[in-house]
């Protein structure tokens, strides 16, 4: 059987596919979240230096990862939509933006909650915190520009350009702890060497990360379905879809 990779590039077929995927993804997200919560908050030992305050990392680190990954994904989809005029790509980009902004906010918020007991302050203007805050503003800028332009195609392209320019910020966030000697500690996990943390903590964090991934997919799919219905409202299939509802 020959696979047709472009089948789901059509909003109509993707609408059906994503509709089927949302429920399983949500279930996976919930199950992993419960499991990750159990491992991270009950099973994992208390940290020798930071006490129980360290446990915020089970939310903070996955949220911060997601915020960066989703920005790159958003810019990538937006760029694809701009380059190839594929409608669904641009819709994906606009569907990703709010969830990405939410994760960015979550990373900043949990970081502040962690910073108060460990650093003694809610916020410092160090390189990583500042660049993460800039990321939040880039998400907001993307959404604001998209919302300000009435014509959808122009909105897609303009927002795509902005998103692509903003991508320069992502490596800055990622490497900020190496480039600048600041308060935010370096990474405990890397692809190339053994992590400098206890295995059970690492497992808890990875489970949480997968939970966040599953949630992000489900949330983006839900939003993209709404966008598809709105943008394609003049097509035949959307009209029949509404009649069937």
């Amino acid at each position: 059987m020959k696979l047709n990779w472009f089948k789901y590039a059509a909003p109509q077929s993707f609408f059906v596919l994503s509709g089927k995927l949302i429920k399983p993804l949500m279930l996976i997200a919930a199950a992993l979240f419960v499991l990750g919560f159990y491992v991270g908050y009950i099973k994992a030992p208390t940290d020798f230096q930071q006490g129980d305050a360290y446990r915020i990392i089970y939310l903070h680190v996955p949220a911060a990862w997601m915020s960066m990954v989703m920005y790159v994904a958003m810019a990538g989809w937006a760029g694809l939509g701009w380059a190839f005029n594929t409608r669904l790509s641009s819709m994906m980009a606009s569907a990703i933006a709010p969830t990405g902004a939410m994760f960015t906010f979550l990373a900043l918020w949990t970081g502040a909650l962690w910073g108060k007991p460990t650093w003694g302050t809610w916020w410092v203007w160090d390189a990583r915190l500042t660049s993460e805050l800039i990321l939040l503003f880039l998400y907001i800028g993307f959404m604001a520009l998209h919302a300000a332009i009435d014509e959808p195609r122009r909105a897609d392209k303009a927002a795509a350009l902005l998103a692509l320019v903003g991508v320069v910020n992502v490596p800055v966030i990622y490497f900020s702890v190496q480039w600048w000697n600041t308060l935010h500690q370096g990474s405990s996990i890397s692809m190339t060497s053994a992590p400098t943390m206890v295995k059970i903590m690492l497992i808890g964090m990875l489970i949480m990360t997968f939970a966040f991934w599953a949630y992000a997919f489900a949330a983006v799919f839900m939003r993209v379905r709404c966008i598809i219905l709105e943008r394609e409202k003049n097509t035949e299939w959307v009209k029949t879809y509404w009649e069937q509802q």
Partner: protein
Amino acid sequence: MLNLFLCVLQRDLLLAMRRRSDVFVSLSFFIMVVMLFPLGVGPEPEQLKNIAAGILWVAALLSSTLALNRIFAADYADGTLEQMMLAPEPISIMVLAKVLAHWLVTGLPLVLLSPLLALQFGLPGEAIGVLFFSLLVGTPVLSLIGAIGAALTLGLRGGGVLVSILVLPLTIPVLIFGAGAVSASVSGMEVAGHLQLLGGLLAGSLALTPWVIGAGLRISVE
């Protein structure tokens, strides 16, 4: 290509000179914002000296952002921009000339005036020199990055606030290194690193942004 560049530059400067009040408005805005801080935070000389770099840089950033929508707006409104884009010459040259003209009209006066304002904040002579130089290198970067936002928001309602939201996050590095250079000079540290990074930002944005601005204009005008 140089002909086109000079031609657009001359035209834009001429237009700006015919409407001189626009230049003075953004310059006055710069002075006003700077003036508000000593009145707001109190006139202690030591404190003012410490925050002078940040204030002058933020004021420069704000007033250059405020003037951004003038780069393309008038030409867009009367259709000149469309005609320019139909021309066979590369759009990035035209864009570069327009941004340079805009900087000469709104950025350069502000740079020239900055030493005077720095004196009011009691900055030492050396720091004033650093401030002048950092603004001289940094404000063109602000205009270049800002023009991206100006191109994308052409003809939109509420464009003024929107352009600030789009552009300000991208200009933060310029602010950090520009104000950082002056602060470093005030506290007697090495300034070369900051200025070199600022120069690097200028070189990079000079090379890359004209294409981005051109792409933005194509999206907005098509």
